[in-house]
Every structure is written in structure tokens, then in C-alpha cells.
């Protein structure tokens, strides 16, 4: 006996096997990202008032990346539609855009990550307000230990215009009023004054912990999805000749996964970048 309903839908459920499978898998994914989301909400609500970092991510780039992902989502569904009209060439063409978008998304994400790794915050031993900005000559991931290891006695910091303590509305007002210079004077900080030094890495704060964990997990999903779509676009496409219906189903199923990944981003973007 062969396994039934691999291609044609079963009468009473109206579904073929892989479709049931992928939706079940997506249900578990909902719980995975849902748990992380819940954790985010909880940690955020429980944070000390005013201390939750915001406005530290690059919004134009994030917006662009959102558009890239949305585009890939529509191309996936269009490529499936192309197969439905038995137009294999069109499928290949459209799906290659999807793949480019996936690569683009990952590339941009890498760039964004890298930007964060050299952006620093300094907390002072005497308890005065911390400062964020860039440090002259600093590489990635420096901490107080790095300074000690390198025997650096003081650092020069180019502070950001506003610290994230200041609410974004306030920042806008201050910016308009012109009292705060666009590029504040660099400040020199002795290593002995520093209580803690951290780049915008996961260890920086629960905010960045959440940001990196969620976006990295999402990026892994993008990567996985791209692998599957790439396989079906390249070597896996030979199935179109032997079993076109099954191949179309595969495209549909991989597309469902891809849309889900897109859907997660639709929530991640405003929550992490804008709120």
C-alpha cells in the first residue's frame, strides 16, 4: 500500500497531507513566537519606568527591510499562481525575486546588527546619568574587561544627540527648539570612572536581549525558508516534470511557511522598532 492523499485532498477533510502538516507546524510556531512575545511584554511592563530603551534602531532601514519581506511574500504567492496556470518559466522568474529578497533581507539585517555592535553605552561609577554614543577606535563588543586587557586608561566618546531616557516626543520638541546641538561635543572618560561599558549587544539590557533573540530567531526562519525555496527553485524543480501537482503543492506549502515568517515580522517591526 502507498501512503494516500500525498497529492489529492482527502474527501472528508478536503486537505492533502502536507497541508495539514504545515499548518500544524505553524501552530507550534505561533506558540514559539507567542511565548517570546509574551516574555517581551512582561519584561517591558515590569521594567523600571523610563528605562526601557527605544529609538535606538535604524527605522528607515527597518522600513525598507519590511518592504523587502512583503515583496517576497507576494512573489511567493504569485509564483504559485504561475504554476497553477502551468507556466513554469514565469514561476522560476518570479521565485528568483523571492530568493533575492530573502538574501537582501538577511544582508540588511547583518548590516544592522553590525552597526549595533560598535554603538556603546557607558554607565558611571558615581551614578551620574549614562551616556550612549560611539567610541574612538573601539571595535565590536568592548566591555570594561577589554579596556583593562588593552590597558586603555581613557576613552573618547561621541555622545548621541539624545539618550533613550528622554521620551521620543520630548526628543522631537528639544530637537525643534534647537537647544541641543546635532553633534554634541566628544567627551573624554577615564576608565576608572566607568562602572559598566556595553555595546548594543544582547547583554546590554533586556531590550536588546529581546531584540536580538527575536530577530535572530526570525532570521533563522528566513534562512531556513530560503533554503527550502531555493531547493525547490533549483534541483527540486525537476519534480515539475514527473509530478507537477505534487510540485505545486510543495510550492504552496513552502509558501505558507514563508508567509508565516513574513507575518511574524509584521509584528516584530513595529513592536521592536517603533514602540
Amino acid at each position, binding site marked *: 500500500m502507498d501512503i494516500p492523499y500525498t497529492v489529492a485532498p482527502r474527501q472528508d477533510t478536503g486537505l492533502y497531507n502536507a497541508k495539514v502538516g504545515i499548518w500544524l507546524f505553524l*501552530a507550534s510556531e*505561533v506558540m514559539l513566537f507567542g511565548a517570546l512575545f509574551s516574555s517581551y511584554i512582561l519584561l517591558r511592563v515590569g521594567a523600571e519606568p523610563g528605562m526601557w530603551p527605544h529609538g535606538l534602531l535604524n527605522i528607515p532601514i527597518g522600513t525598507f527591510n519590511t518592504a523587502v519581506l512583503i515583496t517576497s511574500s507576494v512573489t511567493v504567492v504569485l509564483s504559485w499562481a504561475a504554476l497553477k496556470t502551468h507556466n513554469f518559466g514565469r514561476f522560476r522568474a518570479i521565485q528568483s525575486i523571492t530568493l533575492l529578497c530573502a538574501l537582501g533581507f538577511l544582508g540588511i539585517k547583518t548590516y544592522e546588527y553590525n552597526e549595533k555592535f560598535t554603538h556603546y553605552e557607558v554607565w558611571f561609577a558615581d551614578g551620574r546619568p549614562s551616556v550612549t554614543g560611539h567610541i574612538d577606535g573601539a571595535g565590536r563588543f568592548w566591555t570594561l574587561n577589554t579596556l583593562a586587557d588593552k590597558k586603555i586608561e581613557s576613552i573618547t566618546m561621541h555622545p548621541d544627540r539624545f539618550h533613550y531616557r528622554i521620551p521620543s516626543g520630548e526628543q522631537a520638541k528639544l530637537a525643534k527648539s534647537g537647544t541641543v546641538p546635532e553633534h554634541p561635543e566628544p567627551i573624554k572618560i577615564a576608565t576608572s570612572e566607568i562602572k559598566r561599558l556595553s555595546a548594543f549587544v544582547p547583554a546590554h539590557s533586556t531590550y536588546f536581549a529581546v531584540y536580538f533573540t527575536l530577530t535572530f530567531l526570525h532570521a533563522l526562519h528566513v534562512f531556513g525558508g530560503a533554503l527550502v525555496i531555493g531547493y525547490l527553485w533549483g534541483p527540486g524543480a525537476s519534480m515539475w516534470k514527473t509530478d507537477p501537482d505534487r510540485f505545486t503543492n510543495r510550492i504552496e506549502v513552502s509558501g505558507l511557511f514563508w*508567509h508565516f515568517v513574513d507575518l511574524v515580522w509584521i509584528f516584530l*517591526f513595529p513592536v521592536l522598532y517603533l514602540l
Partner: protein
Amino acid sequence: MADSHDISKTVRKYIIVFVALLVGTAITVGMYYVHLPSVAMTVMVAVFIASVKAFLVAGYFMHLIDERKMIYGILGSTAFFFVGLMFLTIWAMHDFPAHTFLGSHVP
């Protein structure tokens, strides 16, 4: 479904959804720059728009609009458990014995 006329119609639908998604993104980002009066409102609008976008993706790209009962059942129970997880956890973290102090700054 395989009917090519139908398909060209759905393709048009996909394009419309695509544009709607881009517009939604633009609104969300725009909202960030105009600064709504209160944080709560910002959150609400942002989550609302995200939900609409999610509905569009799930409904049209993922064909949930005309999917089978079985799938609705699976997703419905998932939604139930997800809400349970989130709601109950948050509730539990806000209901402690009287005179409990949260945070490391204690008077």
C-alpha cells in the same frame, strides 16, 4: 482553481493586498514621526495596523479566508492556548500577596 480566468483575478487580488500592506507599513512608520498624544494610543494603533496586515497576509496569501474547517479548528485552539499563556502569565505576575514589593529598590 486551475481555471486561468480565476487565476488572473486572484493575481489582481494579491497585488491589491500587496499595496495595502505597503500602505499599512507606511502609516505605522508615519505615526512614529508625528507622535500621537499618548503612548497607549500609539501602541493601540500600531498593534491594530499590524493585526490588519496579519489578517491580510493570513487571509489572502495563505488562503485562510476559504480554508477548511479542520485548519480553523487547529488554529482556533492554538489561539486559545496562546491567549491563555499570555494573559494568565501577565495576570499572575501582577497578583501577589498584599504588601509585596517588586523590584530591587525596597523602602
